[in-house]
């Protein structure tokens, strides 16, 4: 991508003040060239979001993890569609149309996505024109033929899970097509991140997807710190990683148990459920909250770790008990019969969609935001990236198993090497300093006193992207978040094709995409 990146930088109209990766404004032609380059695989689409008069596209280099944001001003409310040549962008573009009223020219799918005709307004973050709330019907894609029948599931599901609608077209037991309809838990998060305080925005971002709250708070803090140019004490950096790994450990343990349970192997859920509970209790004992919500804030962390003994005891216990569960999984043929060769996701699709987390890594996409782009303290820690190539439910379980061991490894290293010192720097002095015009800094002075920050953090589910624009007082003018689920949900539709209906829960759980993170 490096030559491509140089070409883009040369074609830039302006280079904006965004840290640590550049944001450039481009013209329509460069935007179109970039969309073709993504479609050709020269870069991975990492995000696509809008504001009332512009669209932003984040490009990721899979190898070195460097990011770049392209911005196109939309003078007449239109922009050249990315989804036309690169399908992973389609739902993001439909969301942009629903929220801002901007039209992607040439987009093959013009159905509404997040807008279910229930808000009472059209384009709530754009023109905001009032409309009736009549809940217009949704035109599902057709799968026709004499033996086919449809199965409609949701939005309220049978289990304790989030709402979404799945429409299966099946030939007997075989799924011919699955189409998802999401957006039920759309809470208007981008709207809530517009012109608000840093504290309020942090709380909203921590609740984008509750299971990844630590990862989101970390990404938000890193984006805010980059934008505002404030530092973080060493101890806070290490405590953040400790919380992130505890979160990953808890979620992976829960997922491994739950996937096996969907193959009717309840013993695994019972044992993994106990281990998960022990992780959450340790989190509560160490940081005062079972999910460690709102523990990471811009500038540092809000609680210190006073006693590492519970965490050490936890890793010892998990190390004693988890290997036997792995052995149980590996030696139970009836269970393997369900997971092996079920719900295969091809390496090509995983790469094209930039599938993050265990889903991508189980289909050969060796990408982990902790390695590249990387962020401290992971550069100082010793861990391996889990990776498998089969792309089936089994591979996704094994990636999670490997990552449980890696997280244990990381937690032990962090606890052993936790540096002393303060856990947060106050933001106020740093912000005051920024408001004083600095001599000789005029050339680099951002226009209209705004600065931007971008951060990518590896949640248990994959890479989370947070973008913020702040002013000098530290107010958040605008923010956008992108959950890994956005690129994983469409892949579930591909993975289930040709499988039996009864294997859908198994496949779905092995993906474990977030509804809330997707719907925002």
């Amino acid at each position: 991508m490096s030559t491509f990146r140089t070409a883009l930088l040369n074609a830039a109209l302006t280079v904006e003040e965004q840290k640590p990766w550049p944001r450039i404004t481009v013209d329509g032609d460069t935007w179109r060239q970039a969309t073709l380059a993504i479609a050709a695989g020269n870069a991975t689409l990492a995000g696509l979001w809008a504001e009332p008069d512009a669209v932003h596209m984040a490009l990721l280099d899979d190898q070195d993890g460097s990011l770049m944001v392209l911005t196109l001003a939309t003078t007449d409310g239109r922009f050249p569609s990315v989804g036309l040549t690169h399908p992973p962008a389609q739902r993001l573009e439909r969301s942009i149309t629903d929220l801002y009223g901007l039209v992607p020219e040439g987009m093959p799918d013009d159905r509404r996505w997040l807008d279910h005709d229930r808000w009472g307004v059209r384009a709530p973050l754009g023109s905001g024109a009032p409309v009736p709330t009549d809940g217009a019907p949704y035109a599902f894609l057709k799968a026709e033929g004499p033996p086919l029948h449809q199965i409609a599931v949701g939005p309220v599901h049978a289990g304790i899970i989030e709402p979404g609608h799945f429409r299966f077209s099946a030939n007997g037991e075989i799924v011919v097509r699955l189409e998802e309809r999401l957006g039920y838990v759309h809470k208007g998060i981008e709207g809530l991140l517009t012109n608000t305080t840093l504290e309020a925005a942090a709380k909203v971002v921590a609740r984008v997807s509750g299971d990844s709250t630590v990862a989101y708070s970390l990404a938000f803090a890193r984006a805010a710190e980059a934008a505002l140019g404030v530092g973080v004490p060493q101890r806070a950096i290490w405590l953040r990683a400790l919380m992130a790994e505890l979160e990953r450990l808890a979620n992976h343990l829960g997922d491994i148990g739950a996937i096996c349970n969907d193959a009717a192997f309840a013993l695994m859920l019972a044992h993994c459920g106990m281990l998960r509970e022990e992780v959450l209790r340790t989190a509560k004992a160490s940081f005062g909250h079972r999910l460690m919500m709102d523990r990471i804030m811009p500038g540092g962390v809000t609680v210190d770790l006073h006693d590492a003994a519970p965490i050490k005891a936890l890793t010892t216990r998990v190390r004693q008990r988890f290997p036997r569960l792995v052995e149980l999984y590996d030696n139970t043929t009836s269970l393997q019969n369900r997971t092996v060769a079920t719900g295969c996701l091809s390496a090509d699709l995983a790469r094209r969609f930039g599938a993050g987390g265990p889903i991508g890594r189980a289909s050969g996409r060796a990408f982990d935001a902790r390695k590249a782009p990387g962020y401290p303290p992971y550069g100082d820690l010793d861990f391996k990236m889990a990776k498998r190539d089969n792309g089936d439910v089994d591979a996704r379980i094994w990636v999670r198993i490997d990552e449980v061991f890696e997280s244990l490894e990381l937690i032990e290293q962090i606890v052993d090497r936790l540096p002393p010192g303060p856990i947060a720097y106050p933001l106020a002095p740093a912000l005051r300093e920024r408001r004083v015009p600095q001599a000789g800094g005029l050339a680099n002075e951002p226009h209209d006193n705004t600065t931007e920050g971008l951060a990518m953090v590896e949640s248990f589910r994959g890479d989370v992207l947070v973008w913020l624009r702040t002013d000098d007082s530290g107010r958040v003018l605008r923010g956008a978040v992108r959950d890994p689920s956005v690129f994983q949900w469409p892949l579930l539709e591909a993975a289930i094709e040709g499988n039996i209906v009864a294997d859908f829960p198994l496949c779905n759980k092995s993906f474990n995409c977030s509804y809330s993170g997707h719907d925002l």
Partner: protein
Amino acid sequence: MRRMLFEGLFRRPVTEGAPAVADAEIDALAERLGVAAKARLGRSLSIREVDAGSCNGCELEVHALNNSYYDVERFGLRFVASPRHADVLMVTGPVTANMREGLERTYAATPAPKWVVAIGDCAAGCGVFGKSYAVVGAVSDVIPVDLVIPGCPPEPIDMLKGLIGLVEASARG
């Protein structure tokens, strides 16, 4: 696997004792519910969980009620797959505009007598999502709520206390 099952038979259970729920709380709840449910339901309640817009944090903790530490089924509390089988709706999240109809229809599909428990700060009062065009309000703005269990998310032990109170109250009513 055999070894693990044997150990399960002979090891002390990890399941913890029932949390204490004050009599006064139960009386108050029984009075508020004001329905003669004992004859019909006895000491057992079937629960249907509905996510009306949560961030999934509450779902994680509702899930935890089923693990061996809390083992919610020993109190006669059971999570069921259909509102048709349910006595209690546990609702999480601020009610989003897109989920309002789903919640209303789930409530309508639940046979009486029925109770609604609002789980978490969002269900109780929209949490941090109140000022959004996409949120219609707290659960009580859409369907009648009998019990609120606050928290972000509430811990399983708090939910357990609330639900045990509900079982006791419904048995007394």
